[in-house]
Each structure stands twice: as structure tokens, then as C-alpha cells.
């Protein structure tokens, strides 16, 4: 592999890990609220969360570039804007992969038997205590699925990064962009290596998750 490809691999992994961590931190309370609430705005929030599933990444990227530009609604918080920066990519990826983390968590939380929680409640367990000692262990498969899908989806991200990244080596040049550039430059051998690697990597990750979930389902 070229050193540029190795650096793209590193940026990709760093981006996927950071995004997954942030999404688990933000997505857990959001998914919990969605699974418990009777609020009327629940449907609105659910639709908003699902938007990245149906929107072309180019739509997201187009608006993100404007928002991240110097003086934009997000970019305005930074002196030079956040477009073409790693931070900008993280913001884009969090939005882009949001449904992949929130939806499995919401499903997991929603399928927990309420009687368990009520029993704990009569034993005077605080809401926080109930969450950590009942909800978390019972929704372990949901967390694994959410983390894996969030991670894998960010690794496979292309359109958004293409629109807001600016292709800066070591900062915003990710693996999918490097593959695209190899193809455009007619460097098909390198494109094969990276594409094949990514294909294998994605399959292995998904295989491991499904195997683990099947084991838990049968145990």
C-alpha cells in the first residue's frame, strides 16, 4: 500500500471510532426517550432521525458545506469554519450514521419487559440504577448492533465526505475517497486492493455481529 493509502485507512478508522463513541453517548438517551415517551413530538423526532436513511448523502453534504463554512450556523463557532476539517467530518458522520445507532437501541429498549422495571422500582431502585442494572444488560445485543452498524456505516461513508472533506491527506482523505481517486486515475490495481479489503472487512464485521446475536438469541 502507498503511504497515502495507509494514512487514509488511519483517518477512516479514527473517524469511525470517534463517530461511534459520540453516537453511543448521544444516541442512548435519545433512543431511551423515544422508547418510553408518549409525547406528541415523538413521531417528528423519529422521522428526523430516519432522514439520513432516505436522503442522498449529497443532500446532507450540500447543506453541511454551507453550515460548516466560516460564518455558517455551525462553522460560525470556529474562527475559520469547520469545512475541510476532521471535526467537520465527525459532525457530518454523526448526522449521517445517526439512525443506524438510534434505531437498534430504540428497538432493544422497547422490547424490555416493563414488569422487570416495575419490580425494580418497587424495590426502590432509582431510575439511573434501573437503567444501568436492568436496561443495559438486557439490551446488550442492541448495543452491539448499534455500535457495529454505526462504525461500519461510517467506514463506508462516501458522499458526505466527498462534499465537505476537501481531500486533505491525513485530515479528511478517507479510504472510500482514496479508492475513488485511484479509479479516476486509472490505478485499478490499487483500487482493487483497497476495495477488496474493505469488502472483506465489512463482511467479517457483519458476520461476527450476526453470529453473536444469534448465539444470544438461542442462549
Amino acid at each position: 500500500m502507498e503511504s497515502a493509502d495507509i494514512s487514509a485507512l488511519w483517518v477512516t478508522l479514527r473517524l469511525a471510532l470517534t463517530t461511534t463513541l459520540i453516537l453511543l453517548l448521544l444516541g442512548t438517551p435519545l433512543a431511551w426517550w423515544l422508547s418510553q415517551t408518549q409525547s406528541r413530538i415523538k413521531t417528528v423526532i423519529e422521522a428526523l432521525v430516519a432522514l439520513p436513511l432516505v436522503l442522498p448523502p449529497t443532500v446532507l453534504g450540500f447543506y453541511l458545506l454551507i453550515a460548516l463554512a466560516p460564518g455558517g450556523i455551525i462553522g460560525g463557532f470556529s474562527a475559520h469554519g469547520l469545512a475541510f476539517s476532521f471535526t467537520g467530518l465527525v459532525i457530518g458522520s454523526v448526522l449521517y450514521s445517526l439512525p443506524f445507532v438510534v434505531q437498534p437501541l430504540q428497538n432493544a429498549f422497547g422490547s424490555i419487559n416493563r414488569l422487570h422495571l416495575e419490580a425494580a422500582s418497587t424495590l426502590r431502585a432509582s431510575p439511573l440504577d434501573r437503567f444501568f442494572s436492568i436496561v443495559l444488560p438486557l439490551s446488550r445485543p442492541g448495543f452491539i448492533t448499534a455500535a457495529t452498524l454505526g462504525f461500519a456505516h461510517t467506514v463506508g461513508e462516501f458522499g458526505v465526505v466527498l462534499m465537505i472533506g476537501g481531500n486533505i491527506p491525513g485530515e479528511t482523505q478517507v479510504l472510500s475517497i482514496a479508492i475513488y481517486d485511484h479509479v479516476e486515475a486509472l490505478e485499478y490495481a490499487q483500487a482493487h486492493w483497497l476495495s477488496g479489503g474493505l469488502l472483506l472487512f465489512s463482511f467479517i464485521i457483519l458476520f461476527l455481529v450476526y453470529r453473536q446475536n444469534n448465539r444470544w438469541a438461542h442462549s
Partner: protein
Amino acid sequence: MAMPTMAETIHVATASNFSQPLKLLAKSFEENSSHTVRISAASTGKLYAQIKHGAPYHLFLAADQKRPEILEKEGLAITNSRFTYAVGELALWAPQQQFTGEAKALISQTDIHRISIANPKIAPYGIAARQTLKAMGLWEQLQGRLVQGENIAQTYQFIASGAAEMGFVARSQLSEEAKTKGYYWAVPPNLHDPIRQDAVLLKRGADSPAAKAFLAFLRSESAKEVIRAQGYGLGDS
């Protein structure tokens, strides 16, 4: 006596930067013939890959000379049909800069944070931008401030959206109004190799009189006038 010609549909693959002028050219060609022109615009590299894998195009208007040449060598394009239909011109554009001075002084300003160029690895206008910056002695010092668009359209969009303060775009992308807004500098052609854009008749079009007629039309005076008016130079053909 002229034989009545069958109405045909010509499939033209064009580099994105030329899709606007091509639409005008196709319209005027259609008005003077019974044929229809169907345009597919993408990057030259992507179109090359598609043609290599059997895409049904009759003509290929590339953004460089390299890809048509390779197709010729691979037997996918008709030998001796290749010619330069347009020569791209590079311009520096900074719509928000109120600056009157030399371009070099403007680019060197340290408070310019992001300068947009097309990716020199894959885009002909990117190669020209890199050559220009090297010729000006600025390439090294600008590393870290350069952002790359995948093609010249995205390079333009980075600047138009305000995400990058300035950049090197194609002169053909800038309206007269855009040029008067902020800072505009037509890069002298001696700072980079000419951006020669070649057209070629593909194997699929070899037996199509309409495709050949359109290729001939591209070299006509009326077509040249349109191409020049759209901000391109002309080849010597």
C-alpha cells in the same frame, strides 16, 4: 443527389466541465438536422472506465488528451478521429476579497485559510493549478491550506459556498457578473501546460453517419464561436 438520412440518436459522453457548452451545441445541431443528441456528463476518468466496459457512447469529449489516446491504443476509439475541440483556461477567483494588487500577493496573505483547487491527481484543471502555483513559487508554502475538489465543478462550489476563500477554477465557469465580484485573475497560459480537451469517435459510433456529422459540426466555425463564447480557447485544428 443527397440521400435522405435516417434520423439517429447520438450518444455523447462529455467531461462535466463541457456539458453546458455541449447542450448549446447539441441544440443548434438538432435544429439543423433530423438527429437527436443524448448527453452523458461525468468525469473523464469515470467515462473512460465506462467506455472500456462497453458503455454505448458514440462520441467522447474528454477533459484531457490522455484518456482519448489510451482508448485509441486499446482499439476502442477510431484512429485519426481525435482532435482538440477546446482548450481550457484557468482563472483565480476570490468572490469575497476586495483586493487590488497582484495575484501572488493575494494568495500569499496568511489570513487566507482555504484555497480550492481541483484534485491534480485526476483533474486536468487541477494539474494546471498545481503547475501554476509551482511556477509562482507558492506550491510548497500553501500545503495544508489547499483543499481539493474531485472535479472543477466541485472546486467552484467550495468557493461559491464560502467554505473556501478562493481557488483556481475554469474561466468557462465564471459569468461576467462573477468576474466583477471580488477578485478575478485570468492565469496567463505560460504558467501551465495547455489544458487540451480532445474529442474522439468511439468504436460504437464508427458506422454512424450522424455521429460523424456531429464531430464535423464541432469543428465548424459556428461551433467554434459558441465554444469561444463559453470561455474556452480553441485547438489548432
